[in-house]
């Protein structure tokens, strides 16, 4: 029973602004990813969701805290141990095109893998393996083998990368925004593929900013805010009964087909030093307006407060459903 455990992981980045200092990207994030489980990691840009994925893939070293896989700390692997780790833990990223070298055939991503992991495998056995992996992601080998990346659609490219991960004995997949660049019609195929792989026992960390996609595939959901967990729990509890104000705000902003946002016109606003309309063609009657007091959910432009390193305390609202104190 393999399990990935993220324990109080923090990551501080050196800020590049004039003020300098350290910016916390992750603040003591802890969770476990079990076999056959899909966790959606949802947060806005800058919430640290991609950093978590990178820490798990050992692309970023955490400032403190540990990630253990099968009880072993992943930062302490030897070269051979790391190779075995990557046999089980793989990532797929947002822009499929940038994962390929445009001057080689797309299936070169398979060959590179062969050199490292399957050097002794015969050609016939290797081809069978590729066929099986392509079959698993519902790709027709003749459609994709020997083609250049630009000849494949985004959905095909993304499924080919998942097939690459399946060639290995992959148990954990970090899927970072893998469908946000795809068209609605192809995005669903990739989503349904993830569901199928999960049913076969794959653990998936599904990183996204799209709440409806996260909701569709996942068993549990983590809402990340300023690098700390704001809310974590079974997906139906988070979406059905959100407790954190931030989660509620996110959910209210999701555009839905059959429900309109409640748009309230801003109304008159009085402004310093104003006179008539602008030059130019239109004749807009400019209504003097009072500067709106930036109500919740609108704008999200309030100056970002200095973020304390210590994350807010999590309380158990109902079994398995933890909610952070407001910050």
């Amino acid at each position, binding site marked *: 029973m393999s399990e990935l455990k993220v324990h109080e992981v923090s990551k501080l980045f050196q800020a590049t602004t004039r003020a300098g200092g350290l910016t916390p990207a992750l603040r003591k994030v802890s969770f476990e990813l079990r076999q056959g489980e899909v966790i959606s990691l949802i947060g806005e840009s800058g919430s640290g969701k991609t950093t978590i994925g990178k820490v798990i893939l050992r692309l970023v070293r955490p400032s403190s805290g540990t990630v253990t896989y099968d009880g072993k700390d992943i930062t302490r692997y030897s070269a051979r141990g790391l190779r075995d780790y990557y046999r089980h833990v793989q990532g797929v990223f947002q822009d499929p095109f940038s994962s390929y070298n445009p001057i080689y055939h797309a299936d070169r991503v398979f060959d590179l893998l062969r050199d490292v992991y399957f050097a002794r495998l015969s050609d016939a056995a290797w081809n069978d393996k590729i066929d099986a992996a392509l079959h698993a992601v519902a790709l027709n080998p003749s459609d994709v083998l020997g083609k250049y990346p630009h000849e494949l659609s985004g959905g095909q490219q993304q499924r080919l990368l998942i097939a690459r991960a399946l060639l290995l004995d992959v148990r954990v997949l970090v899927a970072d925004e893998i469908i946000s660049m795809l068209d609605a019609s192809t995005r669903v195929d990739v989503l349904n593929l993830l569901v199928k792989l999960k049913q076969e026992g794959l653990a998936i960390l599904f990183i996204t900013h799209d709440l409806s996609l996260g909701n569709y595939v996942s068993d549990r959901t983590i809402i990340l805010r300023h690098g700390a967990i704001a809310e974590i729990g079974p997906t139906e509890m988070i*979406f059905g009964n959100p407790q954190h104000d931030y989660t509620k705000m996110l959910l209210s902003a*999701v555009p*839905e087909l059959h429900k309109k946002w409640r748009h309230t016109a801003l109304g008159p606003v009085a402004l310093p030093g104003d006179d008539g309309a602008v030059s130019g063609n239109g004749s807009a009657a400019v209504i003097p307006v009072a500067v*709106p007091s930036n109500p919740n959910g609108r704008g*999200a*432009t309030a100056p970002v407060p200095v973020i304390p390193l210590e994350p807010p305390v999590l309380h158990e609202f109902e079994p398995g459903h933890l909610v952070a104190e407001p910050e």
Partner: protein
Amino acid sequence: MSVTVANLSVAYRSHRGDVTAVDGVSFSLADGEIMGLAGESGCGKSTLGNALVCMDTRMKATAGKVMLDGKELPIEDGRAMRPLRMTEVSVVPQYAMNALTPTRKIRRLVTDLLKSHGVRDRDRVLTEMKRRIALIGLTGDVLGKYSFELSGGMRQRITILMSTLLNPSLLIADEVTSALDVSTQRAVGEMLLEFRDRGYVRSVIAITHDLSILAQIADSIAIMYAGRLVEKAPTPSIVNDALHPYTQALIASLPEVGVRHDQATLTGIPGRPPSLLRPPAGCRFRDRCPFAFDKCAENPPLQEVRPGHHVACWKAAQEASE
């Protein structure tokens, strides 16, 4: 009618011949209308938008004309278009967040823009800009900042502000909400509504692949497929009562909040759109359409089957007439 596009075709020159990316598209927009233009990548929606503002050297209009407020828009003539840009038609281009150069402060970008469009009374326009900045909930000091000091959402909104500063009749907003977080998406969407309500822009064509955002802000939605307009109707009709099989499939592929895979399995659309270099005759969705029949070998015309509801599909037209 503030905007009328009649039978517009736009082609790209390529080594292997012309690629007609927009093929005989006709529609009209009323004053104050926000029209959503949606479709898969490569369907021609951005080409259509760009053609109305600024044709690049690879593009040429092969047929049709565009009327704006009763006057023909000289879309082929870059020199004649120049005084009309920003004042009559304006664009928020795709990846607008990256449209602001990092080497100049926002104020300088705005004054440069006004200068190049021959606006004399720049102080007055800047005052108006400050007013609008306050209106959307930002502070006036963004004018004194560099673009890299602003977040993606702020940059996006500043770009929209700049594009609409001279109150254009028609605004082309190309993917203005993509790549934004949901809360910022909402802020940008509501900003478009507010600007329309205040008359800063008279009508808007919002180009996006995201139907659910259009359901929020658009008055009508037009769906394009492989260079052609396949359906146009008021937003509620598209969302609840789409007639074209392609529109129906697009809507069926959208996940909704609160629906999980074990409750309802979404379906994609198998296949890919045809190549536009030598497109097949007849309905272009035929190969992917579950309802295709013999008649579909002929090209279906866009016809009004119900008041305001236009669709280019033999089956839908047949059913509507019954």
